[in-house]
């Protein structure tokens, strides 16, 4: 057998369950789906699935990828696993540019469930947000990067060396956490929090300024972060940093944070950058000169002095002497001239952000209908949150230009080097994708509809009825067959009908005027997934669930064990259905749909015993009757129409008539069920069933012309 297709589930809800990373220059996407992590290449071709079974089948909370080495950090509850890509050299892989497999390279546990993860841009340190904010570092990597003597040279197997190098217990748990593209800052906000905290590394100025004399109480390599508040009038719902190109030298462009707030105004907070000289004199002059002091006038001296001294410490936050924290500026080693020469280096100081712009949809976007007018009530929740996203067009343009430039540079360099490259690479190898079957031509399996349920046990077992409901049962609504399945919705064992192409039903349902009529007939419980939607209709319940565990759910046709009866039954059914719906169109077959099945349920009870239940199911189609009070099923549609024509021919009425006609062409599936068996399985003492499967069943040829009755066998594992 050939593997045709592996279906990956949907992304876990939330904004932190997916991330884009880079290995070198190649981007990839990693997202969490249930307990697994799925890794996709840049064309969304699936590269790898990291199964959740290896990590105890815990749902993945959040995922983040690093920007250069392609590392993936994922959280399973309170455990974080780090995966690193290993290059595959000899194996032939499907993807041409990304020949990597991710393997676990480290793991560490936190005290509580992790909600956020963020790598620093170099991929060495990891920020985690749980009940407290922590910074984790892999000791080995730090040692290598800083080129000190590797402490663990003799122990290369000591891979998982992650330790927490900084922690801050914030007042409320972290809800959002994002690192700026140059790694200088990271921003956090809690739930219902009006204050965004922008954190910066405060040990950079400490170490640079106090380098000659290290204070006794500070360990070497101690790291510390301080923060500033960005105050908003309401709670902050989201924020994002402006993307800076990786080719942009550090410190050349300022970091900008865009925040979205519940008051429907988005604000842009930009880093305040001032020239480098202000650290010593504490003022905003670019060139400190002594011309000030040579002034004769006393009064002028004083006023200048005041300006110089107090400009820095104005209470308003718009202009301040805060500078970007940067690395390595030892004041006593440089004289005034050197300071000016190294002007791109900003002096060490604290961080400051100011509001550069704000976007209010009500006043700043003239063509957009006012968001507040869409809300029907005063309640804030009906206002959709106003969110602005970065276009990052400048970064994109810059990066593309730089890459073109680098490519040309490389080409020039290559041309200059001697032509010694062998032509091996020119042989193109053609790899055939062997199509497995007809499915591969239509693109494989894709999702049509889905049902969500809050119950944990809902839909954990599903048994399909081995029959196709013919399309005439849905009449004008559908021209494709549908199928039924039995599943538990948490309360009952219920029958559901899955319709492949339910566009017409759904379009009628979306019309609020006639929806209630359609809704009475078809109880649709699914959510749509694609442009060609399917739907799932809830039908009758079979039984209330007794126990918590269903080990087997299986449906098979009555014919398998009761061979003699079918023909008679079908004829009888044909008669009755003819009586009940005489006015069906000529092209329909005379009998409505009617089939019988047996449903077998094996239930695992609390006392470790298993009980087998069996129901007899009779599924048949009943024609739909609308306007119960005014008509009987025997009225012909023409008569109904005549009756109705007395009423006003409003557009609603026309629609209603059309709807009625549609409804009447369809039939509702009714289920009658009867329990026929319910007994504990006779098992030897101390034996418990763990798994059950039917071992003989719908062998197609034998079911049409059964030579003998196939025994119904169940295979159990105990």
């Amino acid at each position, binding site marked *: 057998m050939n593997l045709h297709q592996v279906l990956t589930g949907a992304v876990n809800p939330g904004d932190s369950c997916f991330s884009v990373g880079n290995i070198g220059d190649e981007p990839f996407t990693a997202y969490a789906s249930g307990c697994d992590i799925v890794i996709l290449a840049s064309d969304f071709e699936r590269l790898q699935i990291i199964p959740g079974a290896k990590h105890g089948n815990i749902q993945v909370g959040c995922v983040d990828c690093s920007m250069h080495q392609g590392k993936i950090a994922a959280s399973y509850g309170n455990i974080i696993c780090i995966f690193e890509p290993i290059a595959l050299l000899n194996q032939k892989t499907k993807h041409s540019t990304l020949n990597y497999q991710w393997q676990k390279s480290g793991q560490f546990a936190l005290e509580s469930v992790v909600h956020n993860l963020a790598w620093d841009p170099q991929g060495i340190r990891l920020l985690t947000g749980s009940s407290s904010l922590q910074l984790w570092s892999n000791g080995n990597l730090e040692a290598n990067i800083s080129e000190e003597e590797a402490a663990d040279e003799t122990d290369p197997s000591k891979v998982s060396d992650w330790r927490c190098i900084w922690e801050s217990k914030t007042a409320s748990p972290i809800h959002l956490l994002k690192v700026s593209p140059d790694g200088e800052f990271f921003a956090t906000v809690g739930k219902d929090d009006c204050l965004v905290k922008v954190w910066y590394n405060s040990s950079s100025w400490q170490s640079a300024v106090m380098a000659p004399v290290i204070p006794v109480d500070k360990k070497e390599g101690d790291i510390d972060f301080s923060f*500033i508040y960005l*105050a908003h009038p309401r709670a902050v719902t989201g924020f994002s940093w402006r993307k800076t190109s990786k080719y942009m030298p550090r410190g050349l462009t300022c970091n900008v944070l865009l925040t979205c707030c519940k008051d429907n105004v988005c604000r842009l907070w930009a880093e305040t950058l001032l020239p480098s000289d202000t650290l*010593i004199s504490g003022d905003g002059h670019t060139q400190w000169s002594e011309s000030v002091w040579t002034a004769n006038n*006393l009064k002028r001296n004083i006023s200048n002095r005041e300006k110089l001294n107090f400009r820095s410490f104005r209470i308003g936050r718009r202009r301040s002497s*805060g500078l970007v924290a940067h690395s390595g500026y030892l004041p006593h080693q440089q004289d005034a001239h050197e300071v000016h020469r190294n002007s791109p280096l900003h002096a060490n100081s604290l961080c400051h952000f100011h509001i550069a712009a704000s976007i209010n949809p009500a006043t700043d976007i003239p063509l957009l209908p006012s968001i507040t007018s869409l809300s029907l009530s005063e309640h*804030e929740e009906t206002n959709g949150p106003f969110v602005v996203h970065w276009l990052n067009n400048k970064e994109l343009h810059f990066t593309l230009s730089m890459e073109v430039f680098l490519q040309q540079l490389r080409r020039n360099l290559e041309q200059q080097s001697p032509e010694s490259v062998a032509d091996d690479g020119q042989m193109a190898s053609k790899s055939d994708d062997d199509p497995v079957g007809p499915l591969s031509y239509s693109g494989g399996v894709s999702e049509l509809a889905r049902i969500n349920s809050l119950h944990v046990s809902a839909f954990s077992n599903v048994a399909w009825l081995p029959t196709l409901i013919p399309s005439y049962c849905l009449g004008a609504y559908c021209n494709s067959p549908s199928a039924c399945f039995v599943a538990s919705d948490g309360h009952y064992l219920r029958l559901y009908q899955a319709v492949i192409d339910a566009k017409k039903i759904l379009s009628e349902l979306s019309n609020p005027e006639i929806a209630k009529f359609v809704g009475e007939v078809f109880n649709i419980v699914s959510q749509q997934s694609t442009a060609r939607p399917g739907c799932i209709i809830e039908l009758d319940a079979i039984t209330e669930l007794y126990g918590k565990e269903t080990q087997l759910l299986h449906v098979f046709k009555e014919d398998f064990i009761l061979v003699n009866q079918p023909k008679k039954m079908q004829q009888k059914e044909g008669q009755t259905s003819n009586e009940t719906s005489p006015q069906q169109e000529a092209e329909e077959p005379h009998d409505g749909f009617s089939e019988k099945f047996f449903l077998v349920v094996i239930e695992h009870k609390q006392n470790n015993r298993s009980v087998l239940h069996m129901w007899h199911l009779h599924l048949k189609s009943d024609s739909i009757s609308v306007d119960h009070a005014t008509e009987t099923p025997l009225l012909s549609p023409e008569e109904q129409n005549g009756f109705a024509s007395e009423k006003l021919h409003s557009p609603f009425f026309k629609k209603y008539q059309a709807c009625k006609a549609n409804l009447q062409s369809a039939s509702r599936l009714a289920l009658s069920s009867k329990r026929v068996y319910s007994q504990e399985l006779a098992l030897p003492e101390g034996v418990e069933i763990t798994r059950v499967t039917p071992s003989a069943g719908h062998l197609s040829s034998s079911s049409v012309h059964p030579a003998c009755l196939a025994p119904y066998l169940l295979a159990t594992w105990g």
Partner: protein
Amino acid sequence: MAAVASEAERAVLEEEFKWLLREEVHAVLKQLKDVLKEASRRFTLSATGPEGQTRQENFKLGSSATDQVKGVLTLQGDALAQADINLRLPKHNQVLHCTFREDKQWKLQQIQDARNHVGQALYLLNSRDQTYQFKSGAEVTKLMDAVMLQLTRARNRLTTPAAMTLPEVASSSLMKMFTPPLPGDVFANFYINLSKLCLIVYQLHLLQPNLNKNFKPAGSSVLHNPGSMFEINNQKFEVSHVHKVECVVPWLNDTLVFFTIALQLCQQLKDKISVFSSYWNFKPY
């Protein structure tokens, strides 16, 4: 409407403020103490070395433009222990070599005052140790204001030399400290300007009394320009040349950086506290 806050937001803000008073204030105070301890250490280190012996630093003052005034000043803590000046002035033929008299030191009041202010700021900070619980934002703001005042004064002392009139320069005891004594038409003055130690030498000439020149005595200034006039003992003088030479004192540079950082830390904390008072007139703030 959208400006009306929800209960949850208020509760979060309240928790945040409590956390700020409880944890963050002490963290900032610790940072401040570290910075100012470093700053005050610079003052003492300049006078005494690591083992306690007296330490002196020599600073060569000279200007690249002319060779007229050169000096080597020895700074010990906040006092000039020795000043070795070479004057090659146009009026005199030979080079004047003047030094301080034995056992005479010229106290640089600026440095001493700055050091005292730093000490005062540290004292204020140490009065609130780790276990102290701040009751309100106003209390923190008051403490920060007091510390900032001391630091600003310390900075000002270093950035603002005293302005003196020329008669004051003439009559200062500095003039009497040199041996051999400075010629009568040469004045000298020292001061600290930001992180630089400066030596000013004024060359004067006597104004003839009968010359009908507009006599306007110059006022106080840190640095007097050529052409400034003054009168001493019924004799009028005019400044003909001004020579200024300077040298950067590295540890003064460091302390100025520390002052700026400390002031910014204080301001940042004040800003963080004041953020809360702008929310819905919340009373406890």
